[in-house]
């Protein structure tokens, strides 16, 4: 179930490239609880981009339901959150995304993961348990640790909406944007 990235000291992913990929995949709605990993390089730019409708939710499991409901008429959405929110939403993901087989697409910032370590070897317990949990749930996950990884985003979202399979991107390094967040 895993598309993994090796341990690396590569350049972090580009926020612009992630946004390009989301638009290429026709994602128009972003549902989010702020996450420190993706805040400056992704969520702030998205919040200012008129091509996206940003729905700020109070709790991540709301977002699971919102994204699932949107999928009924093929309105594509992405739930952007931190791994703490992922953990808090496991029952909703289990029921709504997996039991119901609905294309809930998630992008999860791994708070606490160092750039030069793999997710599975992270010194952070809260980080390294994420892939095994998703594997047990049979929830496909894709690592976004460098700019080379961002090319997987649009095809994976397209596939999710074609097959109905949920999907989780694991962002291991903070995305950066040219000039930084202002």
């Amino acid at each position: 179930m895993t598309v993994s990235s090796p341990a690396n000291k590569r350049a972090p992913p580009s926020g612009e490239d992630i946004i390009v990929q989301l638009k290429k995949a026709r994602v128009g709605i972003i549902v989010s609880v702020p996450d420190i990993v993706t805040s400056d390089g992704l969520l702030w730019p998205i919040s200012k981009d008129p091509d996206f409708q940003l729905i700020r939710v109070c709790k991540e499991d709301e977002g699971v339901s919102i994204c699932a409901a949107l999928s009924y008429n093929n309105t594509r959405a992405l739930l952007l959150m931190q791994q703490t929110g992922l953990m808090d939403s496991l029952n909703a993901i289990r029921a709504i995304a997996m039991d119901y087989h609905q294309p809930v697409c998630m992008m999860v910032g791994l708070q606490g993961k160092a750039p030069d370590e793999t997710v599975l070897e992270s010194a952070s317990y809260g980080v390294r348990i994420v892939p095994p949990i998703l594997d047990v749930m049979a929830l496909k996950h894709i690592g976004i640790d460098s700019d080379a990884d961002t090319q997987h985003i649009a095809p994976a979202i397209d596939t999710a909406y074609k097959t109905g399979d949920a999907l989780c991107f694991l962002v291991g390094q903070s995305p950066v944007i040219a000039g930084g967040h202002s």
Partner: protein
Amino acid sequence: MIQRDLALTTLRPHVEPRDLVVAVYQSCFDWLALCPRDLNYVSTGAMGQASSHALGLALGSPDRRVIVLDGDGSLLMNLGSLVTIANVRPKHFLHLVFENGVYEVNGAHPIPGTGTVDFAGMAEAAGYQDAMRFSQLDAFEAALPGLLACDGPVMAVLKIVPGKAYPRDYKYIHSATARQAFRDALNRNET
């Protein structure tokens, strides 16, 4: 107190063919018996999530009316959704809360705050456009056209007691058949 099935029977003639009705637990089972239709959204999956599914439907189909048949115990699990919904401000969004003070399908244990919790007050404080309370059927019946016509989101809290016992068809509400029927009807009517 209002009998739940009578409240739903009162609602039934006001539901238009294109309306989306999101229902949970016993209200869902009663509604399915009283008003079976493909645009009933019954697969909410996890307890408390009805209002969030409804918001997703409202975002995806902003021209449609969305009616939520929520429970008091369910809503307690997702109170933050009141703020989220109020912030998005879906225009055609009626949130009905059937308040019986207990977790009816889970052994009828009391909900925390039975008798004191004020759902309408919380909705108002969250930013809903309006929130009303009903303990008499005729008052609810009189208010329904206005509730469905005014700009949302709006909430109506109904103090209810169980009415006729309709079967709890969990297999159906969690079925792929129910979800596909809703999906087909939604997209059929979209075009």
